[in-house]
């Protein structure tokens, strides 16, 4: 399957995503450039983490207006798989490809740490490798990860199974004390209604290369690969 990692100026985690797809998973992958309007033949696009445009103004505020984002939107409208990780998630909300917005962490500090997540819906193209209720470790590293949306929007997403991951403790407990950043309902990752666009603050790629001691996040990418394989077969 063909992967693309979209590079904005300041996308620090592009190489990390590339490394996981290429060296860990052995899949074909190339970089996409933010100024390009034609992204070529692709099965999945990763919007990587980092500080596109230095996070100036708001994270994602400048990046989402890039020419390549028009192409990403068109790709998603045709059903292509898009995953935004950390800054990528912020860009997807700024581009209104996902509902809500990511505000500054409640504690007002950047947070870099291992984080346990509960898989809330394992029947998507991005989570089929997990069981609903699984607890996985996926590091976070962000200053604006505090997910906010209007209460109607939240209720609708909850009803539709659009919440993919929630922050929790190692036992799977979800409450205020296990919520690192103040996100409503401890939301860590969501999927759009159509089921092909995902945004998540935790970094599955940082939990994919076992040399670094974690590998539970790999399931996200493996799920995507299996989904495409099923489609193509």
């Amino acid at each position, binding site marked *: 399957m063909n992967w693309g990692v979209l590079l904005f*100026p*300041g996308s*620090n*985690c592009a*190489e*990390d995503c590339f*490394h*996981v797809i290429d*060296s860990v998973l052995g899949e074909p992958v190339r970089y996409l450039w933010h100024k390009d309007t034609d992204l070529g033949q692709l099965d999945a696009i990763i919007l990587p983490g*980092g*500080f596109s*445009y*230095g*996070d*100036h103004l708001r994270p994602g505020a400048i990046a989402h207006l890039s020419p390549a984002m028009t192409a990403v939107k068109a790709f998603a409208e045709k059903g292509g798989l898009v995953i935004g990780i950390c800054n990528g998630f912020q860009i997807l909300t700024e581009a209104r490809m996902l509902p809500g917005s990511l505000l500054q962490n409640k504690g007002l*500090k*950047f*947070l*870099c*740490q291992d984080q346990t997540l509960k898989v809330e819906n394992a029947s998507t193209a991005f989570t089929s490798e997990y069981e609903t209720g699984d607890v996985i470790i996926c*590091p976070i*590293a962000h*200053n604006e990860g505090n997910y906010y949306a209007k209460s109607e929007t939240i209720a609708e997403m909850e009803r539709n199974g659009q919440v993919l991951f929630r922050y929790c403790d190692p036992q799977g407990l979800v409450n205020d004390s296990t919520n690192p950043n103040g996100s409503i309902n401890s939301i860590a990752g969501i999927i759009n209604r159509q089921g092909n666009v995902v945004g998540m603050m935790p*970094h599955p*790629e*940082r939990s994919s*290369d076992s*040399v*670094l*001691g974690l590998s539970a996040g790999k399931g996200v990418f493996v799920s995507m690969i299996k989904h495409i394989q099923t489609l193509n077969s």
Partner: protein
Amino acid sequence: MTKKKADMEENLWRKAGLTDSEYELLTKHMGRAPNVVELALYAQMWSEHCGYTHTRPLFKHFLTTGPRIVQGPGENAGIVDIDDDEVITFKLESHNHPSAIAPFQGAATGVGGIIRDILAMGAYPIASLNSLHFGHPGAKGHTRWLISEVIHGIGEYGNCVGVPTVGGEVRFSNAYKGNPLVNAMCVGFMKKSEIKKAIATGVGNSLMIVGNLTGRDGMGGASFASKDLEDENDEDRGAIQVGDPFMEKLLIEACLEVFAEDYVVGVQDMGAAGILSSSVETASKAGNGVEIDVALVPKREEKMRPEEVMISESQERMLLIVKKGMEEKVNKIFHKWDLHAVVIGQVTDDGFYRVLEDGKTVGEVPVWSLMDAPTYVLEGKEPAHLAETLKFKNEDVEIPKDLNDVLLKLLASPDICSKTWVYRQYDHRVQMNTVVKPGSDAAIVRIKGRDKAIGITMDSNGRYCYLNPKRGAMSIVAESARNQVVSGAEPIAITDGLNFGNPEKPDVYFQLEQTIIGLSEACRALNTPVIGGNASLYNQTPEFGSIYPTPIIGMTGLVKSLAHVTTMEFKAAGDFIVLVGETKDELGASEYLDRIHGLVTGDVPELDLELEADTQKYILETIRSGWIKSAHDVGDGGLAVSLAESCIQGKLGAVVTLDTDLRSDSLLFGESQTRFLLSVAEENLDQVINEAASRGIEAAVIGRATQEPIITIHNNGLKLVDVSLDDCSNAFNNAFDLLMKADA
């Protein structure tokens, strides 16, 4: 010359920070009196900051070569060989004075500056570290604000630029109350063939400036940085430099793309004294001259005077020496990243440093003379306090009744406690190479695609150097190397940051000289040459006096296989705990005396460098043999604290039984050197003990790790410590949060 005119000029050179004799010397070099532009050039290049006027003569003590040393001091950063035609380059730099005034920006630009040094070598920056020294935060908030802002600044810059901040240290003493220390280190990786130098070869080649626009930032910072904070005034400060990590990230990407082509002959970052020092240094190395037209420099502000343009310290700028004819190609690559590379001058053959404005010469001096800053060798005098502190005897203090309480207090000491509060604000994982994250002894960063990694540490101990400058300095190098070997790394080389008070004071000069001698001796013994460094002098304030003499060591080591990577925490209940090295009746200079008795006194523990080297070799080899499950050095707070740290991180208890005649406080909290705490599985225990015996190294089984979450320590049948793991963990893990509590 009329009397009046002479007076004016006198004022001018003194204002610029030059002494009368320096002024005389430069007029001799020039063969005439300088104009304002020329005076500014000398004032900058001959400052302590650029010219190392007080420290350069002392550098002769350093060992700077060795089998793995590819580049010693003299370039932007030193380079060491890590096999497979791959090298790493690293350096540290202080940003003390800027951080005292504008802590967020000061610390942030410190990080940015050292990253550009690494970039200038042609390397990709792969890791940052920082060493921070503050006063104790009192009830009122200034110090707490400083701490918070400095850490925030380091985090924001590092996180945004995409270089993981993998380690460092934070230490506290009121010696730093008015004058905090902020030293940042960066490590870069490249292939040997990719090394770049700061050299302006090839007459006719172009000088191109890339990155940010030039403004009046940090005006005079180069000479300002060498002045007392006490006689600083608003005017001296000029505008504070503001860091732009986003620009730096673009610079890294664009520069490395340009370096991959055959377009540039030399690279230099712009640090202190900006365009001036970067271009003088490159020209001097090549034995060439350069000319620069200030009108060509892209500026952010209007009506900048030529000397302002030359010495501005606007951040995120680099100087490239580009082959004639390749300028457009270079610019094209920068353009892709929405940057521009602009020609501002040429390499010339006449050996002059020439400043033009719109083609008209406004300053012209011999390049060599700018690089030839006069140096000062002064007479040191032993600081008066030593006569008093060296008299200290252990009997001067009483052994506290409740040793559990002492242990908990030490675990909560700001020097010792967990720094999670700090490093969770740093992205220490971006680039996905951080195998051992902050919180263990050395940070371990892997080299992708290879079965190897590098160990990186930063260490200092101002109190040790205050109480015994030479041995204190030796201890820091030894401790750094211990942190490397316990992590499975073979120490390779160091970079040093010399943070001192005013060297013109004889006692400070004594500290400076003795410290350098101490560093040198230890580096020779442990085979870790000095490949670069930085000096920050004049760290003092009228209110709090001089800082402790504070050399800071940044060390790198090579982990030859990822299988050797070892961390400090106990791994399994039942594993045997082995103490390597001899514990003596040494309380002097300890964290224990300072925190528990409120005494900064005594002599620094003895250090036998030969034994140190042998013991380290033993530790490394047993780790490489796969016999060791955890390894930790015994450092601040002594044996009990190290034991507790291994328990806390491993979430295991321990039962330890000792059999010595030592005072219980020396035994538990004394800081005798050259000691290590290992945990070993039963099947390897004999090998570990026998190997030590065969090398004449002391190693004894002192206990076992336990499932039961309690730490007990007995001596001669007497129970000295009996404390729950929870209490230890809470003391250790919560202390920094509590310290910063008022930080809303």
